[in-house]
Every structure is written in structure tokens, then in C-alpha cells.
């Protein structure tokens, strides 16, 4: 038998989202959210771009000082990017120069203009971990490191020792549901079902393609109306089989949400910002269009999840990552422009995550293998950009930050610190952060500062 959950209760007993919120509050699951955050003009959105497969951070941000680049070129060998290709950046708080991958051409000016920051060597950590502690088993570490499925799951749940079905985006939505939640889900994934979006209270929309797709073939004739009524009636039956109920719930919600979203989007106008015609570009365009009609949806807080795949570059990495980062750069830039066009560049923060980074030492097929800590980008006018946050790893095989001998960097900043900084900006009280990020209490610094 399935465990009966609060969410089931909410789904089956509540008729309105308001009732849902009230019921949720009665469970005392919801923490306090920053006071006075409900002003009519108040709006904030978080947009997660997940890079599936494990983006090679080592070629995303490269040391650019003479000694640093020489060390990089020596170890990375056939994976090393040419120094003359790289795009220089100067992190404000650091004395040495760095560079971005040459395909991050649109990100470079955003970084230099203070709209983009990098959070370096961030990854899943239970607690601060040194190489010696890791090798000698002296600290708890996340289970199943270097495994795609587990590390994707952990990056999305911040639960590092279990196989939870609730994401940190979902828990964040749960926290704000009572104050900011409305009739429409706070959380929208345009990359299909992803655990990041699943909450205990908050129900997400998870679409792949058109989130306003509706059932076709109904003309409005009496026969068709009877048929449509029958279709909808069948979705309400308690068949006694849990999986049938689940499928029916998904379909019912989809029909309802698509109608609501379509009605809201009809109030928007076409964006003049052009997006790349890639899957990621399409998803971010949809996010921008939804943000544009935020008033119609009545939501002062929204969380979005979009993704791209193909980052698992075990071979032919140079050409493959080239295409992927070019797309990412163009998509991020277009999305930033769209937020400016809509008038919310200060109110939207976009951030990247990936399974993990990749080995510094190349493999024998011109690629790299699964590693651990990596660099991520954060974008928006609220971001204290043009700088690095966290400690850049020592790029030495078997060095102080290497979990092995191949350059698998032990994160120097934890996912929990990264997520908590975003959540704090979003409006969650400091006291509530540990219930979203279970290992945050193991780290002294709770706010990395990239959002002021």
C-alpha cells in the first residue's frame, strides 16, 4: 500500500488552492517568510538551468595568468583550450585573471558588466571535507558519488543520503505557499518531470513542450460534449489501484492547468527578444512569456526549471562542449534581455546546476570522466556579479582538492550554501533554511553573498 501523504490529502480533500494553503498551514509545515513581502509590486523568480550529463567546469572557467594557464595546458593536454581563444575575465575580488570558454561570448560582457557571477567548485557535500578526510573515510560524504542518476537527484533534492522524492525547489515552494501561493502552481518545470520541482505541499506543473496543450477533437457538439464529460468523469473514479489514480491525477491537473495558463498567456504580448531555436532557448522563451503575465496568474513568487542535456562528454569533448556552451551562452543572454524587456531584470535570478564536473585529466578518447565539484553561473541585476564566490580549487592531480589522482575536485562550497543563498534572496527566513537544506548547519557560511 502506498503511504498516505499530506499531499494526497490536499489533492483529495481540497477544492481550492486557498483551502489547500489553509490545510497546509494547519499542519504547521510552513515556515515564516520575510515580513511585508507581499507588497503588490513585489515579484521574484528563480530560474534553474540544469545541465544534464555533467558539464566540464574545467573548460568553462580557466586560469588565465601565465603560470595558471601553463599548468592547465600541461595537464589538460589535448583538452586544453588555446589561450588566444579564451575570453578573459577579471573577478573583482581576485588578483589573478581568469577566462571563460570561448563559446561563452555572450556571458563574458554580462560578467564584466556585473550581471553574472560564478560560484566556483560547488557540489554535494555533507560537511566540509578535505582530501585526507575523504580518503581515510573520516567524514560523511554523499552516497554514490560520480553516478549520474544519484548526483542529478542529489543536486535537485539536497538530500545526500537518501533517495527522496521531494526537491529543494519543491521545499522552497512549500515554505512560501501560505503567503505567496495562489490558485496556480508556484513551480513550473518546462523540462518534464524533475524531482527539483516536487514539494510536499506545493504541486508543480511539469511540461515538456507546450504547457498549454489541450485535448483535441471536441467540436462542441452535443455528442462531443457528452464524450468530453465522460472522459473527465473517468478521471475521477477511484479504481482502487494507486497507479491509475496517479495517472488520472496527472491528466486532470494537466487539463486544468493548460486552460489557466493559456488564458493568462492570452493577456501577454509577443516578446521582441529573439531566443535561439534550441530546446533550451524554447524553454527559456516560455519562462519569459509566463513571467510576462505574472499578474494574470496572481503569483508574486515563481520558480522555474529548464534544462539541456548532452554534457556527458566522455569523448570528442572539445567539439561537443563547444556547441553546448554556445547554446547556453546565447540562451542565457537572450533570457537576460527578455527580463529587461519585461522590466524584471532585478526580480529574476537565473542559476545553473549540473550532475557534477569532470576529471581534470583527460581520458584516452579525447574526453573526460565523472568528477565532483564544478563551477556554476548566476545571472540577474540583483546578482553582485563580475566576481567569483567560493574558493577556486587547486588544479593539481592528487593535490589538496583532488578526491583521487585524476582531478576530481572535492567541493569547497556546498550545494546547500549555494541553494540557501538563492532561497534567502527569494524570501525564506534564515531559520527555515535548514529544513530546505538539511546539511546547511554543517557549514559556517550560510550566505555566499552573491545576492548582496
Amino acid at each position: 500500500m502506498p503511504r498516505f501523504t499530506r499531499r494526497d490529502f490536499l489533492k483529495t480533500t481540497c477544492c481550492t488552492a486557498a483551502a489547500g494553503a489553509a490545510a497546509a498551514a494547519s499542519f504547521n509545515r510552513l515556515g515564516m517568510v520575510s515580513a511585508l513581502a507581499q507588497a503588490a509590486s513585489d515579484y521574484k523568480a528563480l530560474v534553474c538551468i540544469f545541465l544534464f550529463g555533467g558539464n566540464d567546469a574545467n573548460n568553462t572557467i580557466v586560469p588565465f595568468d601565465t603560470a595558471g594557464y601553463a599548468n592547465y595546458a600541461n595537464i589538460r593536454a589535448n583538452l586544453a583550450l588555446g589561450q588566444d581563444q579564451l575570453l578573459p575575465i577579471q573577478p573583482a575580488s581576485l588578483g589573478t585573471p581568469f577566462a571563460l570558454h570561448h563559446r561563452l561570448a555572450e556571458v563574458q560582457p554580462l560578467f564584466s558588466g556585473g550581471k553574472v557571477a560564478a560560484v566556483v567548485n560547488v557540489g554535494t557535500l555533507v560537511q566540509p571535507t578535505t582530501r585526507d578526510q575523504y580518503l581515510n573515510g573520516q567524514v560523511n560524504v554523499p552516497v554514490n558519488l560520480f553516478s549520474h542518476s544519484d548526483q542529478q537527484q542529489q543536486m535537485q533534492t539536497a538530500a545526500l543520503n537518501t533517495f527522496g522524492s521531494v526537491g529543494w525547489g519543491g521545499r522552497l515552494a512549500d515554505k512560501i505557499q501560505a503567503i505567496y501561493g495562489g490558485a496556480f502552481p508556484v513551480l513550473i518545470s518546462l523540462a518534464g518531470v524533475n524531482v527539483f520541482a516536487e514539494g510536499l505541499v506545493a504541486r508543480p506543473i511539469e511540461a515538456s513542450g507546450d504547457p498549454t496543450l489541450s485535448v483535441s477533437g471536441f467540436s462542441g457538439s452535443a455528442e462531443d460534449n457528452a464524450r468530453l464529460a465522460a472522459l473527465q468523469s473517468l478521471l475521477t473514479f477511484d479504481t482502487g489501484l494507486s497507479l491509475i489514480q496517479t495517472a488520472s491525477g496527472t491528466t486532470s491537473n494537466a487539463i486544468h492547468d493548460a486552460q489557466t495558463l493559456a488564458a493568462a498567456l492570452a493577456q501577454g504580448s509577443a516578446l521582441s527578444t529573439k531566443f535561439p531555436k534550441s530546446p533550451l532557448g524554447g524553454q527559456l522563451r516560455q519562462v519569459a512569456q509566463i513571467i510576462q503575465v505574472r499578474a494574470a496568474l496572481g503569483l508574486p513568487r515563481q520558480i522555474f526549471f529548464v534544462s539541456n542535456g548532452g554534457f556527458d562528454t566522455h569523448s570528442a569533448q572539445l567539439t561537443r562542449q563547444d556547441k553546448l556552451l554556445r547554446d547556453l551562452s546565447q540562451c542565457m543572454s537572450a533570457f537576460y534581455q527578455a527580463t529587461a524587456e519585461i522590466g524584471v531584470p532585478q526580480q529574476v535570478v537565473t542559476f545553473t546546476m549540473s550532475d557534477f564536473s569532470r576529471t581534470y585529466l583527460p581520458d584516452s578518447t579525447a574526453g573526460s570522466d565523472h568528477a565532483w565539484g564544478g563551477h556554476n553561473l548566476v545571472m540577474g541585476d540583483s546578482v553582485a556579479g563580475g566576481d567569483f564566490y567560493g574558493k577556486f580549487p587547486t588544479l593539481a592531480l592528487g593535490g589538496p582538492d583532488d578526491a583521487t589522482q585524476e582531478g576530481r575536485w572535492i567541493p569547497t562550497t556546498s550545494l546547500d550554501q549555494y541553494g540557501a543563498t538563492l532561497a534567502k534572496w527569494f524570501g525564506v527566513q534564515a531559520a527555515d533554511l535548514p529544513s530546505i537544506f538539511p546539511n546547511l548547519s554543517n557549514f559556517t557560511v550560510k550566505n555566499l553573498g552573491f545576492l548582496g
Partner: protein
Amino acid sequence: MTRKSIRAQASSLRILTVGLTLLAFTGSSVMAGSAEPKAPTVSAAVAARFLEQASWGPTATTIAQVQANDLPTYLQQQFSAPVSTYVTPGPGNDISFIQKQFFVNAMQGQDQLRQRVSFALSEIIVVSAGQITDPTAFSLWMNMMQNDAFGNYFTLLKDVTLSPTMGLYLNMGNNNGCTLRCRPNENYGREILQLFSIGLMQLNLDGTPQLDNNGNTIPTYGQDTISGFGRVFTGWSYPAIPGGKPAHFFSKPYFSGPMLPYQKHYSKSSKTLLNGTVLPPNGDIQADLDAALQNIFNHPNVGPFIGKQLIQKLVTSNPSPDYVSRVAQVFNDNGSGVRGDLKAVITAILLDPEARRGDDPAQVQASDGHLREPLLHMIASMRAVNATTNGVGLSVYAAAMRQEPFKAPSVFNFYPPNFQIPNTSLLGPEFQILNSTTTISRINFINDLIYGTVGSGTTTDISAYVAAAGNVNSLLNMVSANMLHGQMSSDMRSTLSTALSAIPDNTRRAKAALYLVASSSQFQVEH
């Protein structure tokens, strides 16, 4: 709706398409595995439900085939049915050539069990045209999967390992045993363990994870083992291209025939394998490969790990530990001392009391069944309306439902076996690709199938349903028999009755019945 009323409903059904009589349930399930000589005649309902699990969907013809004997005999017939092979593409063909054959074979192949099982295996051991563009890689791959589907799992593992298709997909091809500023690629070494054989955690025979004294799961391997297998899988390259250069290391990908060994490019280092086994330095490339594959194959996880996934694909997302254990025991020993006998494993899965308990509606458990994945939903629906197809146009629909054939997004398949339905303790692998868009896409495919067209080469024949449609009850009996193994619930029947009675035209009435059932969750979740 109580179970009792489902049973009453089932008992009230009488006449079925092509004159088959549905035997009323007596309350005791039909034990198909029984060796009793006078086993009860298989009812049409039991046959239909069995075929939901053992084929791409029951048809009047296959229901009759099962009923002609019994379930074990049907399995034996299927084991020896001629294989629907994939034709090698010619120049100018792309992956759509293979995709069309997939639909044709699944729709019209007489080797339905092989089609279903080899597809299931191809979702456990995954290659993808997302990365490999030559369609020949996939015709050869699928012919291999189909040949090995009823063989031994070790043979399958070895064939997969030396397949140029896999060699290209997970980089074993031209993986050089270099050491200077370089190291062997770990991709195949990691995924053969994590996905194709043993998984990440030590398992009990019943598929549940073993726990240490602190209640934590126990990893099956560490990074040293991954590096070790990375080194084992070095030194192999592609067969020679006919008319081109002789085969050599660093050959370009060519897919016909197994990959070839090059001792000179085989890693000279020692290799840490599973369970503390270490292959000494300077081993022989072929002997080491066999030893390493035996090391994997003989790991106690393989039976429960692979067995449970096959159960999930064919029968239920949430098998009991006892069910997994029974299947794993057969994997470990088919009764004649042979490990890895897939025929025995498939038989054990399909004839297990837990697979068969739903033959008696009163015995159905709340967690039973599994969501038909998009391809299975599409094809079962098409078979129910007696469709014939040349496969044209169908992949577009499947893509919208996130299951374009041979285009899994990664080696992790279209969906993972351990996907947990949010906020429940239930697994529902196929639900990972049921989202607010795909759930509507599924319904809209049914709309096109019934009311429009799903491709220039697909035709349906619903004349039997139209002939029965003069009487709403007869129509519903037929639809229930073919699509819900005669177990349409009384409230579903009553709702459909109301809607259908408002439609005077027999063709439109039959279409409405087929549309509403094929799009329903009751049909989409096989149970």
C-alpha cells in the same frame, strides 16, 4: 467501486468478439504454472491479461492462440517463433528506417514475446541514435538483442560488450590503455556495472538493499573498481570496413561483427574488479575480458537487479520482495544448474502467482500494475483496433510523448527503473515521462488514431466494434474484452453507457467507445 463489484461485473460479461466465451470467474485464480494435466481451460479474460504482459497487446487472434492450449504452452510456442529481424539499411537511410521496422515488428510480428522482451532488454542495456547517426548500428544491435533475448545473460553481456554499437556509444571502441598524461576511458566500465548488471548497492536476493550496522546501504564498488574495469575495456577497435584499410587500432566505427582485440593497446596495469578480485598486470586481453565479464555475471546482484527490472517492464512496477526473490532464484539456477537462462527467467516472471493474481479481479492489490510506456500504449491501442502499419509517421507521436524509438536521451533510458511517484513510497518508472504535456499527447494520439490518421501507412479496422454497436452493452463487452481483459468496472461501464447512448450512429458510437477506453487511465495502466 469495490473489488466485489468488479468481480460481479466480470461475471456478468458474456459474449466476446469472434464468438469467444468468457468463462465466469469462480474466485480462485487460474494457476497457469501448475503442472496438473487437467488444467482448467484458459478464459478469454485470462488470456487477454496474459497477453498484455507477454505481447504488445492482445488481439482476438492471439487471445485464441493462448486459449487453444495454456499459458506455458503459449510461451514455448513463442520461444521458437520465427524472429522478425531488422533489415539492414541502405545508403541514404537514416534512423527512421529502423524506427519504422520497430513499429512493424511490434505491431505485426508473430514473435510477440520476443519483440516485447528484446525491447525491454534494450531499455536496460541502452544505446541511442541521439549520439550514433548510422542506422546500421541499430539494425545489427536489435538483431543481436532479439537473438539473445531467449539465450543466456552472460552471452548477452559479452555480445553487448563487443558490439561496435556499444563500443561507439560508451567509448570502449578505441579505448587505449595509455598511461602517459592519459588514462583509459571509464564510461563503459562504469555503466556496465551501474546499469547493465549489478547496480550501485549490494542487494539481497529479493532485490532489497543490504544495510550495514548503521542502517546505510552498502556500495557495490568504489572508484578503484571503476578505474579497474576502465582498464579491462581497453585495446578493442572496430572491424575493418570492407574495401577499406585492414583492421587496426583506431579504426573508424564500423558495425558489422564484433570489435577486435589489440594486445598492444591493452592496459598493462593490474585491474581491481568486484569482490576484491584483482587481475594481475600484463594479462591477456581476451582472457582478462572473459574473467572480468564472469566476475560481473557471477555477482549475486545480477539476478535481483535484472530480474526486478524485467518484472517492472512486463508485469508490475512494484513487485513484492518475494516475487523478485523467486525470479532471482531462477536466474541463479534454472533448475538444471544453469545461471542466467533468460527463457527460464521470463517464464518465471510471467507465470509467477503474483503476475497471475490479477487474473482474478478479487485478488488485485492496490500497488499492482504499471503505466504502459508511450510506445506500449500506442501499439496496444493500435492492435486493439486491428491496425496494420508500415510505421510511417508514428515516431513523431512517440517523440511528443518522450519515447522516440532508439532515441533515449542517455544510457539511462527514457525513464529510470527506480523513479518514485512523488510523495508516495510507490515506484512508477514510466511516470517519469508522464507530464502535463505528454499525458495530453497520449490522449491526442488516440484521437488521431480513432477519428483521423496517425500516418499514411496505418489503417485500422473497427468493423467488428461497429457491428456490435447497435447494442451499447455488446459494444462495451467487446471493448472490455479486448482492452481491459474483461474487467471494465461497473462505474466505468455506466459512464460510458450514458455517453454512448447519446450517439445514435453505430460507427460514431463505436469510435467514441474506443476513444474513451484507449485514452483512459484504466487502459493506460496495465494491471
